[in-house]
């Protein structure tokens, strides 16, 4: 373990030395995301980088290959701690499993700001996040409105175990149950990529010919939803989540009714700003809601919305 730690610390320091000739007096925050290949994280990164420039601090932005590699993310965290930074931004893949590693950082007096999803307990000074439950609830409201408050709906969820997957699923399902008694959720499927989501959704459409609407819980699921709807010629009301070019195009051509976007740029900014504030001794809120937007054909061009959408 120690060997791995040293090795990865070495790798990390080599990487940062390569990317920016960091001077010793520079303020340095490693920002550890859940991944980096997803568009969403690229947007978070962009926000973090612009805030870093504004605050004149150095950051690195990294994450494991996939959002299932909790252990890899913990290794990255350990390596970051070993560098003794002035603060760490961390998007926990598991809200509990990584507490011991974070405790080490806290013991070393390194301020921690959580983002995207929370960490249980009071180790992070604050958490910059979207309220997934409220956001998915908003999607449910839009769906209910579009289908006239009654009928069968289904949900295509990107993951059964992660906080965002659970939060969006429950937010959507619970809002339907509480507010719209005439709407029944007939099917909930899980798939982690666009192609599999598309095939899943087509099977769902097959199984429930009277289906009125489908909610897809992230970008990949939403692409799958758009593909499935186009291929099958189905008329269901389709609502997505996050953004990306395919989803934006699908909203423009009417395949998707609309979508929920988080504010990834805002999340990125929030992390770096909060760390900078903490360093100055400012007091922080326990949770900073970075907000979400409903967007559809009507408001996509609105500068406030367009700013948080990515291609």
């Amino acid at each position, binding site marked *: 373990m120690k060997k791995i730690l040293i090795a990865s610390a070495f790798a990390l320091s080599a990487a940062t030395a390569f990317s920016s000739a960091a001077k010793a007096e520079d303020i340095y925050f490693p920002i550890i995301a859940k991944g*980096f*290949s*997803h*568009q969403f994280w*690229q947007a978070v990164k962009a926000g973090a980088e612009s805030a870093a420039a504004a605050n004149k601090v150095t950051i690195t932005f990294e994450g494991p*290959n*996939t959002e299932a590699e909790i252990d890899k993310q913990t290794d990255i965290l350990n390596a970051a701690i070993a560098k003794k930074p002035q603060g760490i931004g961390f998007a926990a893949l598991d809200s509990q499993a990584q507490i011991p590693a974070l405790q080490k950082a806290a013991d070393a007096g390194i301020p921690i700001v959580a983002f995207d999803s929370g960490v249980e307990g009071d180790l992070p000074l604050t958490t910059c996040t979207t309220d997934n439950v409220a956001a998915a609830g908003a999607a449910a409201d839009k769906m209910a409105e579009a289908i006239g408050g009654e009928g069968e709906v289904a949900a295509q969820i990107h993951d*059964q175990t992660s906080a965002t997957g659970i939060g969006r699923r429950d937010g959507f399902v619970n809002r339907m149950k509480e507010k719209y008694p005439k709407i029944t959720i007939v*099917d909930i*499927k*899980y798939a982690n*990529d*666009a*192609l599999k989501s*598309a*095939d*899943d959704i*087509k*099977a*769902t459409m*097959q*199984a429930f*010919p009277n289906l009125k609407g489908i909610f897809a819980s992230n970008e*990949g699921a939403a*692409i799958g939803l758009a*593909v499935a709807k*186009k*291929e*099958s010629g189905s008329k269901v009301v389709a609502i997505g989540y996050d953004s*990306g*070019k*395919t989803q934006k*195009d699908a909203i423009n051509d009417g395949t998707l009714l609309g979508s929920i976007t988080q504010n990834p740029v805002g999340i990125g900014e929030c992390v770096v700003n909060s760390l900078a504030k903490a360093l100055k001794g400012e007091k922080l809120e326990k949770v900073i809601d970075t907000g979400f937007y409903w967007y559809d054909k009507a408001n996509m061009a609105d500068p406030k919305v367009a700013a948080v959408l990515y*291609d």
Partner: protein
Amino acid sequence: MTDTTLSTARTEKSGFFTLAALQKAVAFVVLILLLAFFSLFAPNFAAWNNMVNIMQATAVNGVLGVAVTFVIITAGIDLAVGTMMTLTAVMAGIILTNFGMPLIVGIIGAMASGAFMGAISGVTIAKLKIPPFIATLGMMQIARGLALVFSGAKPLYFNSTPNYKYISPESSITNLIPGLEIPNGVLVMFGVAIIASIILNRTIFGRYVFALGSNEEAARLSGMNVDFWKIVTYSLSGLICGVAGLLVSSRLNSAQPALGLGYELDAIAAVVIGGTSLSGGRGTILGTIIGAFIMSVLTNGLRVMGVQEEWKIVVTGVIIIVAVYVDIMLRRRA
């Protein structure tokens, strides 16, 4: 020992009724049983448009399965087929969208880049003597990493190449035979399978593939250039991955650089269910296609039935083990 003792054991036509054929038949029977089962117990399953759904869901896995069938018959393995597929999709995106080249260049580019990556796997295996499992495990990561690097970790879209959708989701055959709305991607899969089957059974390369997988040392001592044919095999596998890359990106109208991990295992499962022996020397393309269909019928059918996602995964695992068990039983019998 006389002629008669031998000829009673096997008849003149024994060549047609080989083990592989027998197991292919078993897989086919399983497929028919699954279709019958779901038709009875899953309402709406048996509709024609759902059959089209199933075919379309089979296309990518079927093509990847064909790619890896060649490698597995040589007693090798290719774990990189999933991520090579992704990389070739990204290459198509770069060629078509970033460079604005004509469609045919994108198609050739995707297949050529797949063949090139496959050739590298082949060279590491044949020349550096790295076991196929390790070499292609490495290639799996390399291809995945390159796909992310080349795409800038962003999806590449094909909006500037409107004809790109004719590779998979559009149906051209419906123009010839109205009502027969089979997407082109499905026809591509069958086309790849037929060509692959001809290559495997009718060419000298195909014969070498079987000889290599049955007894590499004997093949070598027969004067065969074992290293060369291994490299050809992995290159062909990569090239076919390029076809899969075109199919997946055409259907999603985008090259998704993060997709593809885990597809290699689905492809290998299809091959194994279809009766190709992981120990090499035996296998058929038709078996692989049937194997891929078994997997997608299972997925689709269980979904239409409303079986929980988690159980669907369990059932797929059980089917793989049962298929291999049948394989072992048949081999012991013969």
